């Protein structure tokens, strides 16, 4: 309820409410963007852009279309993908699609050293590689069910249920983490 009220205030251009939402979601948005652009500095810049966009387009959000987080998640993914598709970026990084968010855990030489790898390991333990891929593609890359099925070469009808069991596993890990 508090979140709903906050969103209402934000949509009325309440800068205080906006700041609270910014504090609530900035890390998440930046994290998701970073899985796409693989560059923390760039990810931070894009995250700022995304929040500017969110403020400007606050009126276009409607609860009946989905969760507020889903709305800003979508804006963030699109902004990051636009950046990746830009020519200048293509020159720098060519093979992004093969990387998943956990693919960097074991890369000691990457710029991901500032990520909470220990926390991440705990969250994704017991998760099959396919689960990590599904979660990454659906939530962090914004793929459709069909695109996930094609990318991972699995039947379209199983994406929904497999994702459900992957998320359940993740939730279990989180619960264990908290306990």
């Amino acid at each position, binding site marked *: 309820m508090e979140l709903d009220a906050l969103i209402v205030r934000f949509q009325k251009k309440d*800068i205080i409410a906006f*700041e609270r939402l*910014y*504090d609530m979601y*900035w*890390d*998440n*948005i*930046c*994290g*998701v963007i*970073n*899985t796409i652009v693989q560059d*923390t*500095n760039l*990810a*931070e810049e894009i995250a*700022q852009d995304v*929040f*500017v966009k969110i*403020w400007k387009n606050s009126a276009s959000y409607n*609860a*009946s*279309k*989905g*969760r507020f*987080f*889903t*709305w800003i*998640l*979508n804006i963030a993914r699109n902004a990051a993908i636009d950046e990746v598709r830009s020519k200048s970026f293509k020159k720098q990084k060519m093979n992004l699609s093969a990387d998943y*968010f956990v693919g960097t855990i074991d890369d000691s030489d990457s710029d991901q050293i*500032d*990520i*909470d790898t220990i*926390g*991440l390991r705990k*969250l*994704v333990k017991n998760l099959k590689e396919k689960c990590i891929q599904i*979660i990454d593609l*659906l*939530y*962090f890359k*914004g*793929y*459709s*069910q069909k695109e996930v099925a094609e990318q991972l070469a699995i039947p379209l009808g199983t994406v*929904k*249920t497999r*994702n*459900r069991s992957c*998320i359940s596993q*993740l*939730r279990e890990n*989180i619960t264990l983490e908290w306990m």
Partner: protein
Amino acid sequence: MDVEKYIASGILELYVAGALTEEQNREVHQNALDYPVIKEEIIAIEAAILELSQVISPKISKKKGFDDLKVRIAYKQDSKVRSFNVKRTNWGAYTGWAAAILCAVGLMWFYNERTQLESNMKMVEMENKILQEQIFEARGSLAKSDELLKTITDRNITLVALNGQEVAPDSYAKAYWNKESKKVVIDAQGLPEPPDGFVYQVWSLKLDPLTPTSMGLLQDFVKDGNTIFSLDNPNDSQAFGITLEPVGGSATPTLEQLYTLGVVASS
């Protein structure tokens, strides 16, 4: 509706991922409103994704923060303000010019005022001078009058009335003769204005034989103005006569132009 089955279908996970169609989204939203369990499940799924995206977020973040964001949001307002500022700068310039013009007008006004005051002061000064002269003259004429009065009321004065002669029967004059101081005051009030190029000359006369001696000219005779003249008379006069003579006077009187004549009463 079988809520458990609905939840187990995995549609809520896709809802949080944003992978459903608009119509499906509306349906889930409605179900979440109808069934609190569904809403709780959605929130739990979202919380898991938030947790995951939290741990993959850069930890040593060079996060610019909300202040930077506020600046960027306000930046657009700023640019509006800036364009407004340009106008304001213009206003400033206009105000400056207006002030300069006002200042110039003010200075001109002051200059005019000063000039006016100066000329007024000059006029007042001139008036003062004239008044001073008038006072001086008045004092002089008062002194003269005093002297005259003194002269004519002196106990040694002999008054001689000079009557009009053939040339000007209506003319008259008076001579106040102080034998002690040997001075004669002529009151020529009764003489007409002399024509241009002529002047009255006063004569002391001895009667037997008739010997005229010039006592002087009634210089600057002005009818209704300067008609009192003081002349020296060292003579043992028996009569006084006034003749009209060419300017500068004559050695002997022109008897044809004898205006007035009076005999001194023998004492």
